[in-house]
C-alpha cells in the first residue's frame, strides 16, 4: 500500500476536478458523496499506507513521481516523503478532514453553491497533503500557497457580502507577507547549501555551518526568514491579525482550515526544519517567545470577544502559541502532539459552535444566547467536552499535550522558566475565557429560543471528535525517529499542582463572574481604566489600527493619488510643449509680405551686428 501514497493527495484533487467541471449539474447527494467520499477514500489509503509504514520500521519512505524542474544546479522533484511527522499530519488532515467534510454535507445543506464548496474543500485537502508530504521546500511551498488560496476562496465563499470578500483578501495578503519572507528564506537556503531538499539541506547545514561566526549568521538569517512565513500562516505575532476576520467563512472551514490543519502549517514547517533552528538557538528561543506572547495576547483578547467564533479563533491563536512555545524549548514532539490534540478538540468546538449557530438561526453573538443547555443538549455536552479538553483538565487530550509542553519549558535550561510562567498564566486565561464562553452560551438566563439541529451527518462526526478530544491523549505519535530524544523529567509536585490548579482556578473565576455575577463585567468594562483595557484587548492590542495607518492607508492613498500615473504627465507635457512651440512658430506664418520683410531685415541686421561687434 505504501506505493499508493501518491493517491492520497491525488484523490482529493480528482474530487476537486470533478466537482469543478460539473459545476451546477450535480445535485447535492452526488456532490456530497464525491466531496466527502474522496477524503474518506484518501483516509483509508493513508491509513493502510501508514500501518505498513509503521510495521516496516524504516525511518522514512520516499516516492519519486517526476522531476519538477531542473535548471543548472537547481533541482526540485515531485517527491513525496513520509516519516513520523508527515504521517501524523497526513492522518490529521485526512481523518479530521473527512469528519469535517461529512459534517459539512449537513451544514451546507440547501446552499446553492454546495458543489463549489466541496470543490474548494477537496482542493484544500489536496494542497495540505502536498504541503506535509513534499520532500523539498519548493513542493512544501506549493502546498503552502495552495492552502492559502483555498483559505481565501472559502473565507469569501458567500461572496455577495463585500465584508466576506474583505476578510478573504485580508487573510490572503497578510499571509502573503509571511510567504514573501519564506520565499526569501528558500532563496538564501538554496544559495548557501545548494538544495531545497529538506533532509539534504539540513544535513549539509549541520555539516557545513559552523556554530559560531558566519555559519551561525546564515542559520539565523534562514530560520528568521522561514519564521516569517510560519508566523503568517499560523497567525502568530505580528501577523496574527487575519485569523479573527477569517471567521467570516462557513463554520466547517473555520474548523478544518483555521483550527485543525492550515494554521498549524507554521508549526509543521519549523518542526520539519528543526535542525536548522537548532543551529540558530537564538531564533529558536525567539520562536518560543513569540508563542508565549501570542498565547497571552490572544487569551486576553478572547476574553473580550462577543462573537462565539471569534472567541474560538483567538483561542486557536493562543493554542498555536503553545505549540510555538514548545518548538522554542526544543520539545518538537510535544508541539506535534499538541497540534494533534488541538485538532481534535478545536474541530469539535468549532463544529459544535456551528450547530449552535444553526440552531440559533445564524446568531453568533454570545450575549444573545444563554441558557441553551436545555434547548441544545447535544451541543451542550459536546461543547463541554471540547472546552474541558481545551482547558486541559486532567485526563483529557489537551492535558497530556499541554503538560508535556509546560514541563519541557520548565526543564529548558536558559530562559525556559519565563516561558513556563507565561504558559501557566495562559493556562489560567484559557480556563477563564473558555468557561466564560461556555457559561454565557449554555448557562444563565435564556433569552432566545434555540432548537437542536439533528442528523447523522451532523451528530456522527461530533461524537467521534468528542471521543478523540477526551481520549486522544493516550495516542502515541510515532515521531521518535524524526526528532532528537529529549529526556523527559517529571516536574516537581509543586509545579504539577500549579499546572493543574491554574486552569481550574480560571474556571472557578469564570463561574463566579459569569454565573454568580460576583463582578459586574459591564460596569468594569465601562469605567475609565477598564474601558481602555477592554478596548486594548478587544482590538488585539490595536495592531489592526496600527497596520491600517502604517501600511494600508498610505498605500491605498498613494495609489489613488497617482491613479493617472505621474510619469504619463511627463510625456503629455512633452507633447504639449511641442504643440505650443508648433503654435508659436506657425503664428509667424502670417502670409503678410511686410512682416516677412521686416523679420528678414531684422535678421540680417542682427547677424551683421554680431559680425561687426564680435
Amino acid at each position, binding site marked *: 500500500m505504501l506505493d499508493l501514497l501518491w493517491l492520497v493527495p491525488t484523490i482529493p484533487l480528482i474530487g476537486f476536478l470533478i466537482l469543478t467541471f460539473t459545476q451546477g449539474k450535480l445535485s447535492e447527494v452526488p456532490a456530497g458523496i464525491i466531496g466527502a467520499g474522496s477524503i474518506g477514500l484518501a483516509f483509508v489509503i493513508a491509513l493502510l499506507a501508514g500501518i505498513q509504514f509503521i510495521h516496516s520500521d524504516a525511518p522514512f519512505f520516499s516516492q519519486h513521481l517526476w522531476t519538477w524542474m*531542473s535548471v543548472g544546479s537547481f533541482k526540485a522533484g515531485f517527491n513525496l516523503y513520509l516519516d513520523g511527522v508527515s504521517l501524523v499530519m497526513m492522518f490529521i488532515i485526512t481523518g479530521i478532514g473527512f469528519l469535517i467534510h461529512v459534517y459539512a454535507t449537513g451544514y451546507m445543506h440547501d446552499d446553492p453553491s454546495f458543489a463549489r464548496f466541496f470543490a474548494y474543500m477537496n482542493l484544500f485537502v489536496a494542497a495540505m497533503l502536498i504541503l506535509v508530504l513534499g520532500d523539498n521546500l519548493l513542493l512544501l511551498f506549493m502546498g503552502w500557497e495552495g492552502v492559502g488560496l483555498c483559505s481565501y476562496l472559502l473565507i469569501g465563499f458567500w461572496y*455577495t457580502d463585500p465584508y466576506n470578500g474583505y476578510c478573504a483578501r485580508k487573510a490572503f495578503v497578510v499571509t502573503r507577507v509571511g510567504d514573501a519572507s519564506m520565499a526569501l528564506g528558500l532563496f538564501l537556503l538554496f544559495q548557501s547549501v545548494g538544495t531545497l531538499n529538506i533532509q539534504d539541506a539540513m544535513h549539509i547545514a549541520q555539516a557545513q555551518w559552523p556554530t559560531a561566526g558566519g555559519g551561525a549568521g546564515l542559520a539565523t538569517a534562514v530560520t528568521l526568514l522561514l519564521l516569517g512565513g510560519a508566523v503568517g500562516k499560523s497567525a502568530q505575532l505580528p501577523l496574527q491579525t487575519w485569523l479573527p476576520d477569517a471567521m467570516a467563512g462557513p463554520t466547517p472551514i473555520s474548523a478544518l482550515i483555521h483550527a485543525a490543519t492550515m494554521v498549524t502549517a507554521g508549526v509543521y514547517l519549523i518542526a520539519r526544519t528543526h535542525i536548522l533552528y537548532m543551529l540558530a538557538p537564538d531564533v529558536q528561543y525567539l520562536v518560543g517567545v513569540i508563542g508565549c506572547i501570542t498565547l497571552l495576547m490572544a487569551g486576553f483578547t478572547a476574553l473580550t470577544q462577543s462573537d462565539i467564533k471569534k472567541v474560538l479563533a483567538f483561542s486557536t491563536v493562543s493554542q498555536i502559541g503553545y505549540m510555538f512555545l514548545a518548538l522554542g524549548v526544543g520539545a518538537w514532539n510535544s508541539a506535534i502532539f499538541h497540534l494533534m490534540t488541538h485538532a481534535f478538540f478545536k474541530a469539535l468546538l468549532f463544529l459544535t459552535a456551528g450547530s449552535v449557530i444553526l440552531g440559533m438561526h445564524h446568531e453568533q453573538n454570545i450575549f444573545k444566547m444563554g441558557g441553551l443547555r436545555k434547548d441544545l443538549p447535544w451541543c451542550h455536552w459536546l461543547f463541554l467536552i471540547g472546552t474541558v479538553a481545551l482547558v486541559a483538565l486532567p485526563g483529557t487530550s489537551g492535558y497530556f499535550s499541554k503538560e508535556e509542553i509546560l514541563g519541557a519549558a520548565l526543564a529548558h535550561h536558559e530562559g525556559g522558566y519565563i516561558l513556563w510562567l507565561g504558559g501557566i498564566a495562559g493556562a489560567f486565561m484559557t480556563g477563564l475565557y473558555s468557561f466564560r464562553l461556555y457559561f454565557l452560551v449554555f448557562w444563565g438566563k435564556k433569552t432566545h429560543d434555540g432548537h437542536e439541529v439533528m442528523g447523522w451527518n451532523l451528530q456522527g462526526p461530533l461524537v467521534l471528535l468528542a471521543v478523540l478530544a477526551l481520549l486522544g491523549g493516550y495516542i502515541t505519535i510515532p515521531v521518535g525517529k524524526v526528532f532528537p530524544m529529549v529526556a523527559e523529567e517529571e516536574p516537581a509536585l509543586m509545579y504539577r499542582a500549579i499546572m493543574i490548579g491554574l486552569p481550574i482556578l480560571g474556571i472557578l473565576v469564570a463561574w463566579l463572574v459569569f454565573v454568580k455575577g460576583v463582578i459586574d463585567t459591564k460596569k468594569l468594562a465601562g469605567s475609565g481604566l477598564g474601558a481602555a483595557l477592554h478596548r486594548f484587548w478587544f482590538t488585539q492590542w490595536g495592531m489592526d489600527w496600527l497596520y491600517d495607518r502604517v501600511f494600508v492607508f498610505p*498605500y491605498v492613498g498613494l495609489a489613488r493619488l497617482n491613479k493617472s500615473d505621474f510619469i504619463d504627465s511627463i510625456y503629455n507635457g512633452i507633447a504639449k510643449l511641442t504643440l505650443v512651440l508648433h503654435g508659436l512658430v506657425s503664428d509667424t506664418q502670417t502670409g503678410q509680405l511686410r512682416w516677412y520683410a521686416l523679420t528678414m531685415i531684422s535678421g540680417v541686421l542682427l547677424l551683421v551686428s554680431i559680425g561687426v561687434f564680435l
Partner: protein
Amino acid sequence: MILVWLMVILFAGGIGAALAESRGAEHPRAVALTAILIDLFLVILMLVAPDSLGLGTASTVAQLGQHGDWLVLLKAEWIPRFGVSFIFGVDGLSLMLVALTVFLGLMALGSAWGEVKERTGFFYFNLLWTLAGVIGVFTALDLFLFFFFWEVMLIPMYFIIAIWGHENKHYAAMKFFIFTQVSGLLMLLAILMLVYFHYSTTNVLTFNYFQLLGTKLPANVATWVMLGFFVAFATKLPAVPFHNWLPDAHSQAPTAGSVILAGVLLKTGAYGLLRFTVPLFPDESMAFAPVAMTMGVVSILYTAMVAFAQSDIKRLIAYTSVSHMGFVLVGIYAWNAQAVQGAVMTMLAHGFSAAALFMLAGGLQHRIHTRDMDKMGGFWGVAPKLAFMALFFTIAAVGMPGLGNFIGEFLVLLGSFKVNILLTGFATMGVVVAAVYSLIVIQKVFHGKNKNNYTMADLSAVEFICYALLMIGLVWMGMYPQTMLNMAQPSLQSLGVAFPG
C-alpha cells in the same frame, strides 16, 4: 525554407483576407483562420517532429555550430552591396516564441470572430501581417532584416488600434506609434553605429548577427550603442519609465489587439534583450545590469500600485503586464541559469495568462459595454463559467505554484538572489502587491452584489475551448516546466548563460 513559409502564408493570407471582403464580411475571417491553422500545423510539426521537415540537418547545424543548435537556418543574399542578407533561424528559444505567436494568433482570431464587424478584410489583413512581423522578429538574424520586421509588426498594429479601437483610439494609437517609432529609431542608429565600427575594424560591411557578435567598440561609444538597443527593447517590454504607451494602447485596442500586444508584442522586447543587447554588448550590459535590474524592480512595484488604483479593467490588466515584465527584466540582467530560464518561463506564461485576461476583459466589455469595474459586481452569479476562468487566470497571474507564472517568477528570484540580495528582496515584495491588485479585480467584478443588474450570456463553447487550451498550457508549464526549460537551455547557453551542473 519552412520559416519563410510561415511568414509567406500569413502575408498571403492577409492579402487574401483583404480581397475576400468583397465576397461578404464573413469571408475574411475564414481565410485568416485557414492561414493561421496552416501555420499552427507547421509549428506543431516543428515542435514534435522536426525530422519530418528535415530540420536540424548536420550541414546547417555544423555551419554555425558554435552559435548553438539551430534547428533550421536559412541564408540568402538580399542587398549584398550593404552586407544585408536574409538570415532566418530558429533555435529552441525562438521556436517556442514562434509557437506562442501562432497559438495566440489563433486566440486573437477567436476573440475577434464575433466582435469585429466592420472592415473585416482590412482587420484580418492587419492581424495576419502583425503576426508575420512578429515571427520575423523572432527569427531574423540579420540586424537590418530584424529592424525591417520590427517595423512590419508596428504599423498594422497601429491600424488595429486606430480603426477598431474604443472611445479614445486615435490618441492611444498615436502614442503607441510615437513611443515605438522613437525608440525604434534609436535602435536603428545603434545598429548603424555597430555596423560602422565593425566595418572600420574589419573592413567587412555586414549586418549579419553572427559576424557582429564580439565586435569591439570604443569604450565610450559601446555603452551608448548598447543603450540604443536597450531603450528600444525596454520600451517594447515595457519597463518604467518607458511604459506609458501600454495602458492606453491596451485599453483602447480591440480584444484581438490586446491579446497580441500583451501576449506576443511585449515578448519581442524581452527577446531583443536576450538575443541582441546582452550578447552583442556583454561587458557593457553587465556594467549596466544594476540599473536595468533596478528598473525591473521599480516596474514590478510601481506599476502594481498604479494598477491597484485603476477602475478600467483593461487598464488595470495592462499595468499588471508591466509589473510582470519587470520580473523578466530582472531575470535577464541577473544573467545566470535560473534567472534567465525564469525570464523565459515568465515570457511564455505571461503570454498565456495575460492573453486570457484580456480576452476575458474584452468579453466583458463586449457583453455589457463598459470597462468600468465600479459599475460591475456579483458576476459570479450571472456568468459562473466566465467567473471561474477569470479566477483561474487571476490566480495564475498572482503566481500560484502549479501554474506557469510561478515557475517563471520563482526562478527569476532564485537566480537574481545570487546577484543582488537587496533588489531581490524588493522584487519579492512584488508577490504581495500582486495579490493586492489581483484580488480587488475578483472582488469588484465577480464578488459583491450585481448593483446594476447586468445580465449576460455565459461563455460560449468556442470561448470555453479557447480558455481551456490556455489553461492546459499554464498547468503544463506549472507542473512540468521541464519541456520548456529543456528547449530553451541550449539557446541560452549559446547566448552565453552559464549552466553549472
